[in-house]
């Protein structure tokens, strides 16, 4: 059934329209004044002010690789992250750790580890899937480059960004 919306009865002042125009203009003027006085909170002026100080703890920035406190790269080149990555941003070439190495128990290490930051969607799947806690999403968000090649983070860059992650288990160490 059709429902007829009752029209409100307008008073003469409302019909004149002018008072409401003045009221509206007063409101916009109030906003203008507050802006000019700097009382209104506005967006961050990005390149001058940065996010960094109030970045939330759970922020998902660029994925990086980490080393442990013994300076060993934690990644064991299991390639789980390579498979889970939805846009296939990760490329790993695994290699074997020679027997004389003190970390030989780990067996494998990534010879090459590349993350294409043009592809990465910052989903955090790699961090979640990694059995070795070797890959973490850090807080870097301003990722730029002037060519496609520049946007691919290689192993060196990833370790530089990731740094050292302390206090995790040392699988290679038989005592632990």
């Amino acid at each position: 059934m059709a429902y007829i919306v009752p029209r409100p009865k307008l008073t003469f002042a409302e019909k004149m329209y002018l008072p409401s125009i003045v009221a509206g203009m007063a409101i916009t003027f109030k906003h203008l004044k507050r802006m000019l006085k700097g009382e209104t909170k506005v967006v961050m002026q990005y390149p001058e002010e940065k996010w960094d100080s109030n970045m939330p703890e759970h922020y998902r920035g660029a994925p990086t690789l980490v080393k442990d406190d013994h300076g060993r790269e934690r990644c064991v080149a299991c390639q789980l992250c390579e498979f889970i990555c939805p846009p296939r941003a990760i490329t790993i070439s695994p290699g074997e750790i020679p027997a004389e190495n003190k970390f030989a128990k780990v067996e494998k290490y990534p010879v090459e580890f590349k993350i294409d930051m043009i592809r990465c969607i910052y989903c955090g799947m790699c961090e979640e899937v990694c059995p070795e806690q070797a890959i973490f999403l850090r807080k870097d968000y301003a990722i730029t480059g002037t060519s496609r090649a520049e946007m691919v983070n290689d192993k060196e860059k990833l370790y530089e960004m990731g740094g050292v992650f302390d206090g995790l288990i040392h699988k290679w160490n038989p005592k632990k």
Partner: protein
Amino acid sequence: MDFIHSIPWFLIFASLAKTIFIIFLVVLPMVSYTVYAERRVSALIQDRVGPNRTGFPLTLLGFKKDFSPFLGGLGQPVADAVKFLLKEDFTPGHVNKPYFWLAPALAMMPALITLAAIPFGSVLDLDFLLIPLGHLFGAEWGHGPVKMIISDMNVGLLFMFAISSVSVYGIVLAGWSSNSKYPFLGGIRSTSQMISYELCMGLSAVPVLLVASSSGLSSIVNYQVAHGWLLLPFTDGSLTLREILLWIPIAIAFVTFTISMFAETNRLPFDLPESETELVAGYHTEYSSMKFALFFLGEYTAMIAGSALIVVLFFGGWHLPFIPDGSRGGFWGAIFGFVNITAFFAKVAMLLVVFIWVRWTLPRFRYDQLMKLGWLYLFEIALANIFLTAGILAFT
């Protein structure tokens, strides 16, 4: 040789100088900074920041520059202009080319021509400079005070209406020649809108003509100099009963005139010819680059001319209380002459801010509401107002 002597060289040079001054040094920069002000004020009203980056100098050739939030943004009009000039000027294949090219020019020209009738200052007497300068070249250059109006006609007001009524051709042709539906609808809307509101505008200016008993814009200003501004009649220091009574119809005339001015210049709340939410961009949907910029310039120039007309009719033109005009001659005369010009354009700038303020406050009218407002209310009010004014003039 006689022919050359018969040409009024000084008149030609003075008119040329005034035209160049007002168009290239005042109005066009004013247009670009009105656009900037529009963006900035709208941003402030909506709690945003607006364009605040492109400062002066435009480039430091790669050197680092410190961020200055105040000067930042003032370079925006320059950047816009460069962008308009450099963008691809695309002419769609389905348009009617000659008219498509003609339309932007027709939209821009009338707005500029109307400026000819605006008295933008009192008089300027540069003889104290010109006479010694002329002696250097062995010629007599002194000519006494020059009126600061390009063409002082006794039909100045009607001239402005006439020329601005021609400006509708630009919009109509743009809409028609674009050969697509949204521009066409925009063109149709603007035609009927402009024709309707021209009537209201003309009628609401009549009380001013009655009071000042002239239709020449400079004589209207002179009347206001002698008797106080029409809308603020106390500016001459005294207030008579007649002035108080006349204030009522003048105020009504001011309101109706301003509203019709908004409609004439296609500004919100009456921007139906280009209402973005319904018609993409209205009559200039198919335009790009400099042709689009011409529409833009024309619109803002018309806005400036309209504000100038309001200033002339209701706010005393170039007159400021207690500041004499520039007719006394000499150095101080010239200074006062320039002060008058500055006062005029300051008033215009204030009105422009009001234009912008209204635009970012009021929502758009519906088309039938627009027509109803024009024909049923403003027209009748303006008509009755003429009788009211005539009555007051006759009986006081």
